[in-house]
């Protein structure tokens, strides 16, 4: 630490971006919300994928469960589900701000509790698998939960369900959710920064580096692994709840459990930025989201091809990700003082 004001400058800069970007670009509020959500995705995936060496493709489960739990809570509190079937000109889902916020908050808490419990139960079972077996099992889990959600009539089954409309009195939904997701990113980031500095962080790193040795040293590895997944699930459930409400319409496969898009992107973004680093997922998610939005508006029909090419280039030329590459290139900037130590 050469001086203490540098991190303050960085955090201050990001805080300013978080506060003023949605105000400066009101037309981009939805994209900004999704951008912060992507950062949350990458950060939460990195807990297992980067820090613990367990590649999970099933984290999307917690996103969707959080989404359905919070939206169902709103419906449970304020609506008669039967009303959806009534053809009427008057029916709409407008709520007062107090009701909306209370329902949203309660829904998020319920969603988080359900997700953490689910992660604990699932984790205790499948986190005893290692390597590829774990990855494949989680991949199956993501697909299965999506299909399962498509059969539950209570949440609209394959027809999907509508989240309550954002109350007019509260102004712009885009602004509200860009702040919501920004706060979520900040809380997630600092919680993880703190967690990684504790014994818990060292323990999951030890699991990544050599699980058998870690166990021989007396670490209760399964407990740590499950706990790590619960942390992931906790933050993801909030992201899901927010996105469900922002999007307004929840479809089981496209919106709640989109394993092939969000589910894969969270892996991709963390790897793109540099997995196992604190800032890697953040940088990777920002780079990925912005590039993707750019391709979308400029390359009609070819956006995926362009994105694919970009990923290939990154994997071939920057196999350690953006942060990993930067660390190799400028090790002194990352606190690796090579010459001084050896001399």
């Amino acid at each position: 630490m050469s001086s203490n004001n540098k991190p303050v400058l960085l955090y201050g800069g990001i805080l300013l971006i978080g506060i003023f970007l949605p105000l400066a670009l009101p037309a981009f509020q939805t994209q900004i919300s999704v951008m912060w959500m992507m950062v949350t995705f990458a950060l939460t995936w990195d807990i297992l994928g980067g820090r613990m060496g367990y590649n999970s493709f099933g984290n999307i489960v917690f996103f969707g469960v959080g989404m359905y739990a919070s939206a169902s809570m709103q419906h449970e509190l304020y609506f008669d589900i039967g009303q959806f079937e009534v053809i009427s000109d008057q029916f709409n889902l407008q709520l007062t701000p107090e009701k909306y916020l209370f329902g949203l908050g309660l829904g998020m808490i319920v969603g988080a509790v359900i997700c953490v419990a689910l992660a604990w139960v699932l984790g205790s079972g499948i986190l005893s698998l290692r390597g590829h077996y774990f990855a494949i099992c989680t991949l199956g889990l993501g697909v299965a939960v999506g299909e399962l959600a498509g059969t539950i009539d209570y949440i609209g089954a394959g027809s999907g369900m509508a989240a309550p409309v954002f109350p007019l009195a509260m102004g712009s939904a885009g602004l509200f959710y860009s702040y919501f997701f920004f706060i979520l990113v900040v809380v997630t980031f600092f919680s993880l920064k703190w967690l990684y500095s504790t014994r818990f962080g060292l323990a999951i790193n030890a699991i990544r580096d050599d699980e058998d040795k870690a166990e021989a040293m007396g670490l209760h590895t399964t407990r740590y692994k499950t706990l790590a997944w619960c942390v992931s699930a906790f933050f993801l459930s909030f992201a899901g709840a927010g996105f469900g409400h922002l999007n307004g319409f929840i479809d089981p496969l496209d919106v709640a459990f989109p394993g092939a898009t969000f589910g894969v992107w969270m892996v991709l973004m963390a790897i793109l930025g540099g997995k196992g680093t604190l800032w890697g997922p953040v940088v990777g998610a920002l780079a990925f989201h912005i590039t993707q939005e750019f391709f979308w508006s400029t390359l009609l029909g070819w956006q995926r091809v362009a994105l694919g090419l970009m990923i290939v280039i990154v994997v071939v030329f920057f196999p350690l990700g953006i942060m990993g590459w930067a660390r190799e290139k400028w090790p002194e900037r990352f606190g690796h003082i090579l010459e001084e130590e050896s001399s």
Partner: protein
Amino acid sequence: MSKNSKFLSVLACGAVVTGLATTGPAEAKVEGDTITLGSAVSITGRYAVNGKHTKNGYDLGVKFINDKGGITVGGKKYKLAIQYYDDESTAARGTQLAERLIQQDQIKFILGPYSSGMTKAIAPVVEKYGVPMVEGNGASRSIFNQGFRYTFAVLSTSEQYLSTAIDLAAEQAKKDGKDPSSLKIALGVRNEPFALDIGAGIHDDAKRHGMEIIIDEKFPKEVSDMTSFLTKIKALKPDVVVVSAHTVGGALFVRQMTEQKANAPIVAMTHCESAKIEDSTVFGSAGEDILCAGQWAPELTYRDDYFGSAMDYTKTFEKVYGYVPPYQAAESTASVLVYADAIARAGSFDTAKVRDALAATDMQTFYGNVKFAPTGQNIAKPMVLRQLQNGKYKLVAPSRWADTPLSFPRMAQ
């Protein structure tokens, strides 16, 4: 950490700023003499085929309106243009693109996406901004029972799609001296809003005739095998088989039904045209005698000033795009015509005025009569039922246009 931080902050801020700057500034979308409509359609993904029909339909409508001089608003002639985005056939993307069209591109007139699911996702967005949407490809009943005021559909809603097939079955039973309530129905629908509604409609029809639904199956969205459904059909021998599984599922059903030698006296489905079941190089005679639900058929006698009759439209479309227009294309073109008519009648680009003009629409297009219910769906146009006979679609219902008797019972192919 500290140097690292500074470096990072530059990196992150730079990325954010450049990224957002390149997306371009927002601009008003009635510029000079051009009115830009906006649409997020499926150019890639599972709806790519019908997304293309939708886009072609829109483009043809715009071309014909522009060739005729455009629309007159306030004494001035305006041309039409469309700004497209690719929703990749996912609802999450569709809502974001609708936001982008309205917020960033400043487009105030939205044309619908392809499929009920996507329309259902976008409808709340246009409602939020008070921007009208005219759509021709979202037929699910659930779009029209939420009190949306800005969504207008030129099509008949999905529960009507295969009702006529059940009525035909009942008629045939009476002719054969059987009680219609003795008929048994097998129902297979894809697990998504549109097909589920068709299923709900069939349940209502069955109840009305006192028929029994003995097989009621839901296919996953990405269905790749229908063996279990077909095995049940072979075992239980229903009198009517009704399937709605979209384009890919429809093609799969026709192919596997023939391979596994399953059959029923009446087989009715949706999406025949987009699945191209009439194409004998792919399906042989597997599609013979299948009843196909359609919003529209070239044989109908509707007409308008832009395209002439339904048959004229078909010929024009075929000349431009090289294939016979399925109803998905026709209803998309009709959406553009309805929009143009409403903007001209409103005499203004004010979204609320155009919305009111849309609500008051009462016109005939080559696609059919258009008059909207207060909830937004078209109530002036019936569904049609065609049967594939000797490789050609023949109109068998409604009786007003039907030129061919029903071929009954269906022979195993």
